């Protein structure tokens, strides 16, 4: 081709240099491009995802807790919250002039709407006049009617609207220029205005959301702002029909803990709290940009079964723009993740498992009602206004170890627990009241330990029979007290003494002298041998690996204190002094006596089911025999007979527990009354002193009744414990009697028929 020849002819060295230069430039660019796009491409995709994806933690729905008969004790209730999507309200910052003109225009519009006038002054006109620094006085209306005048006088008009005679003016010289505002402040302002509008319509008190909204805008703009929580149906209907409608908001359902029986189970279930992300695992926290908090159990079953109840939190990513506002959920057009990769980023939350308890709902409710309504004449310490009996009740299956009821009063309302005022109320320090009389509703009295009083005597008798060479038929003369070597007299229940007494009647009449003599004769070691196996001084529900129920107390084993004197042995023999037992521990050893020596682990959890309640994931081993009383069966039978006599004997100490209706359960049991000495306090919470300057000491009685029924074929063990009672047989025994008479599983036929009729 001639053309090419000509071009070649025209070429010289300098042109070739330039051609080479062009090629070098393009090659350098291409190489760098290849490096960026081909070899480092994935790094950049990662970086772009990092800057525009925000992983949000989706909390799992917490599992339910149910009773054995299918009553739901803790559920998740849907509550509705009003959410504001910040992006929809996003405004740019403006200068003072624009803001002022906008404000003035809105005031004028309001006026116009009130007067049915057309406002022909637009925001732009105002802005132009403001910019020109106008001092004009514009007439808005002339000759107002008296009705309009009255309306205006009531209104709180800004200074730039002037009224003279019957005319209304807009005075530019009196306009105060507002400060300029940045975008975030303006957005917050517009959101707050909307929130105020909603609150005033639904009649909620106005709150200042400004600071909260500003903080939210700065810290988590991708998340909607929760303006109003827990909307009622009425409020929902008002919001949905608002005019002008609320744009950029949505009403979102939200799960929260619901308690159908808020007081009966409070101590068992325990309360929950929102998890603090700062306490969360570093890695876990780092994998979420926005950490939506979930609940965790603080105490009770909520805490113990945390692992089963909590579930696994899910993750959802949203794609945000440069302002941090949500642009999409990461799918569709303009997404930085491929459709197929989406599963790597998003995973749904796994709901928590349901926990089925061994509790019998009817028994629990009944026990609670009985305790709350204990007749006041059976109480040693009269109740003040607003106070409740301080008591506990435990019902256990003595063959399987299932706890059927476990109540502690005074209780607290779980559904109100997160209200600050209520929390303060129940945590009232009550300084003027001595510790022994304090209400302390947060304490679970069924698990706390107290001096057992006489209910320990059956166990002591067992150790005496087994290790102390005690002859059950040997009679001892009782004068009504036991005199310690120091001269101190320990009084008996019967003032004039029981006379000659054998083991059976000693248990029946709860003779102190008999058991103190026995205790002192054989010493502490034989007691410990039996007590240790009976579960005293040990956490009753603890598993082998040491996991236990919160609030569980181990109590005090006699002889394990630092100093031990003879008097201590004497007092321990009648269940006072350095021995402490919780009602649940009492239930365990009474059950062991009733079932012939098997020491069971009391159990609250029957089984764990999946969130749909379909599949049983795990169930407890029933019965879980953890120990055996080191006692011969015949000795146990002796004690059982003694305990039977407590209820039906000639001089029975608990005649109130006798079956009075035909067909009612026959019980065996043991009363107990422990005296607790406390120092009286004055109003300042300090020691009260009498005229001589000595502290004033007073006594209250902690009364017990432990029982098992039916007598011939033991099935249930019931423990009733009341602080500040009169006597175990007077205060506690009737409660258990009434319980067995009313509970449908033990109710006498006669009563059952009556009810059916």
């Amino acid at each position: 081709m001639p053309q090419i020849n000509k071009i070649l002819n025209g070429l010289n060295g300098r042109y070739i240099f330039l051609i080479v230069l062009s090629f070098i430039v393009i090659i350098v660019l291409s190489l760098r491009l290849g490096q960026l796009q081909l070899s480092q491409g994935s790094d950049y995709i990662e970086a772009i995802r990092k800057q525009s994806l925000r992983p949000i933690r989706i909390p799992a729905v917490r599992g339910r807790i149910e009773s054995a008969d299918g009553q739901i004790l803790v559920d998740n209730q849907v509550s509705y919250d009003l959410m504001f999507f910040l992006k929809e309200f996003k405004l740019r910052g403006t200068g003072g002039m624009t803001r002022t003109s906008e404000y003035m225009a809105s005031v004028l519009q309001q006026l116009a709407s009130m007067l049915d006038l057309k406002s022909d002054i637009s925001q732009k006109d105002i802005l132009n006049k403001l910019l020109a620094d106008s001092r004009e006085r514009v007439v808005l209306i002339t000759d107002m009617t008296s009705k309009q005048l009255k309306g205006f006088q009531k209104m709180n008009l800004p200074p730039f609207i002037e009224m003279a005679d019957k005319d209304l003016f807009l005075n530019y010289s009196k306009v105060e220029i507002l400060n300029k505002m940045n975008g975030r402040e303006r957005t917050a302002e517009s959101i707050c205005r909307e929130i105020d509008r909603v609150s005033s319509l639904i009649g909620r008190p106005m709150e200042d959301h400004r600071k909260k909204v500003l903080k939210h805008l700065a810290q988590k703009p991708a998340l909607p702002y929760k303006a109003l929580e827990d909307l009622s149906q009425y409020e929902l209907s008002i919001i949905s029909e608002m005019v002008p409608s609320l744009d950029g908001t949505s009403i979102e359902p939200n799960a929260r803990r619901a308690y159908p029986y808020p007081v009966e189970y409070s101590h068992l279930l325990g309360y929950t709290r929102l998890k603090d992300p700062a306490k969360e695992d570093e890695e876990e926290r780092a994998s979420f940009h926005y950490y939506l908090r979930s609940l965790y159990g603080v105490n009770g079953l909520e805490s113990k079964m945390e692992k089963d109840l909590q579930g696994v939190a899910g993750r959802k990513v949203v794609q945000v723009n440069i302002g941090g506002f949500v642009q999409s959920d990461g799918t569709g057009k303009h997404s930085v993740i491929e459709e197929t990769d989406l599963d790597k980023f998003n995973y749904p939350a796994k709901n928590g498992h349901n926990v089925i308890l061994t509790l019998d709902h009817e028994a629990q409710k009944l026990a609670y009602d009985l305790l709350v309504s204990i007749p006041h004449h059976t109480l040693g310490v009269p109740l003040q206004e607003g106070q409740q009996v301080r008591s506990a009740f435990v019902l256990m299956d003595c063959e399987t170890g299932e706890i059927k009821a476990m109540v502690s009063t005074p209780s607290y309302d779980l559904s109100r627990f997160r209200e600050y005022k209520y929390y303060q109320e129940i945590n009232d320090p009550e300084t003027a009241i001595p510790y022994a009389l304090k209400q302390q509703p947060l304490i679970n009295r069924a698990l706390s330990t107290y001096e057992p009083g006489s209910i320990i005597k059956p166990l002591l008798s067992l150790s005496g029979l087994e290790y102390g060479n005690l002859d059950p038929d040997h009679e001892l003369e009782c004068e009504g007290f036991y005199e310690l070597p120091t001269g101190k007299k320990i009084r008996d229940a019967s003032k004039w003494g029981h006379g000659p007494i054998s083991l059976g009647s000693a248990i029946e009449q709860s003779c102190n002298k008999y058991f103190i003599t026995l205790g002192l004769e054989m010493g502490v070691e034989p007691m410990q041998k039996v007590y240790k196996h009976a579960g005293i001084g040990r956490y009753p529900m603890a598993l082998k690996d040491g996991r236990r129920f919160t609030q569980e107390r181990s109590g005090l084993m006699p002889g394990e204190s630092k100093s031990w004197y003879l008097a201590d042995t004497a007092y321990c023999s009648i269940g006072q002094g350095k021995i402490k037992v919780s009602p649940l521990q009492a239930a365990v050893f009474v059950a062991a006596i009733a079932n012939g020596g098997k020491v069971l682990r009391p159990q609250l959890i029957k089984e764990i089911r999946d969130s749909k309640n379909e599949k049983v994931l795990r169930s407890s081993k029933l019965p879980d025999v953890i120990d055996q009383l080191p006692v011969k069966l015949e000795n146990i039978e002796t004690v059982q007979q003694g305990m039977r006599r407590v209820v039906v004997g000639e001089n029975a100490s608990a005649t109130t527990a006798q079956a009075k209706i035909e067909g009612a359960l026959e019980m065996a049991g043991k009363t107990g009354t422990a005296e607790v000495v406390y120092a009286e306090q004055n109003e300042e919470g300090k020691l009260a002193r009498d005229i001589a300057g000595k502290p004033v000491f007073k006594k209250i009685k902690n009364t017990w009744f432990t029982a098992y029924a039916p007598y011939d074929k033991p099935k249930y063990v019931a423990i009733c414990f009341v602080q500040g009672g009169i006597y175990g047989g007077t205060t506690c025994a009737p409660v258990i009697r009434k319980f067995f008479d009313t509970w449908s599983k033990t109710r006498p036929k006669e009563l059952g028929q009556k009810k059916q009729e």
Partner: protein
Amino acid sequence: MTLWDRIKSVFNFILRMDLILIFLVMSLLSFSVFVIYHIGLEAGGGLANYYIKQMLWIGVGFVLMVGIAYIDYEWIGVHSWMFYVFGLILLTLVLIPGVGMEINGARSWIKFPGFTIQPSEIAKPCSIVALAWYASRARVLLNQLTNIIPVVLLAAGPVFLIGMQPDFGSALVFIPITATVLFVAGCKVRYLAYPLLMAVILTPVMYFILKPHQKQRIDVFIHPVAHPMSVEYSTNKATDAGLPEDKIARIENMSNPWFYTKTEIAYQKKEISKEEYTKLRRKYVSLRRFIANDGWQAYQSALAVGSGGKGGKGWGNGTQIKLGFLPRSITTTDCIFSIICEEGGFYWAMVVLLFILGVILCTIRTACVARDLYGKVLVISIGMLYLCHTYINVGMAIGIAPIIGIPLPFLSYGGSFIISTMVCVGILQSVYIRREVTASEHRLKDLV
């Protein structure tokens, strides 16, 4: 002349044009409209109509191109002083506060009702014509150093005025163009090589004369890798002084490692008060803060390019514009190549680069067949103008050139820039049409 003859002459005129160049240019321009249309779809707002405006400018540019191709470039050369003065007047006008419009600290635009023009773009072809004309007149005389000075002064006029705006980037482009003009016109190589060497040496000195925001741009270019020697030196000193380990680990993230280390050591030894220390601390530039401020555009461009990968995200499916990480105002100009890389991927980016290379080679081919030295100098300096623009714009996107607001030839949006580019294409065509004809063609002419 009959109508038939007229049609024939128009046909001959078209046939004599550089059709390859026209094909390349028109493909690039239509691609530009295509890309700007998609950017408009994503960004919305004012950008949504840019593709229509771009088509309008391309239409105007095309008419201008044909018109200039019709004019003999010799005539343009003779009257080049007029164009040169016209360019200088525009550049002076833009400096007058009432006339020039200030955007982002540079007074670079003159506003007309309906549109704005950018005198620095229009001044480019005007100056090139004048430079080429005088350099080619001087010819052999260029062997003497004293004769180069007038040409350099000629270039210094617009450079000075553009520098006053200040638009450091556009002014910078004149330097390689002047060098090309001299180089092609036959100036001794050493006259060009020595200043180049000097510039390399003097750059650090220049650095201190620049304004803060211009310094920043250079910083952005230099920063991403703090000098390894400085890092090593600082680390040694810091270890000797016994700075805590976390502070030593931070050294390599600093734009000025030694400044950082010096301050920390001084504070450690309690040579400076706490107030002074906090004041100095604010001057540290950590990599993270650097990306959030001065390095934002460079970093986001690199992200756009890198995340595009081999095949791109698909046209109209990019994320950097939609999410607003790339500043919208520059997406159609400075960052257009990043968008092509992001949405079209490596292949489309390479196609664009090869087409531009094709245009540049066309200019050199035109130079080879041009009938006189003036034509040769003219077309090659235009080619080098394109090359220079391409290198800086693409380099900005991929992090191998400073961020100095230079548009990409044929692709970036901008009325003045498209007009200026098309005028240059017109000049190329004008030179090509009037090329040295072959003997056979002469004979053909004689026969007709």
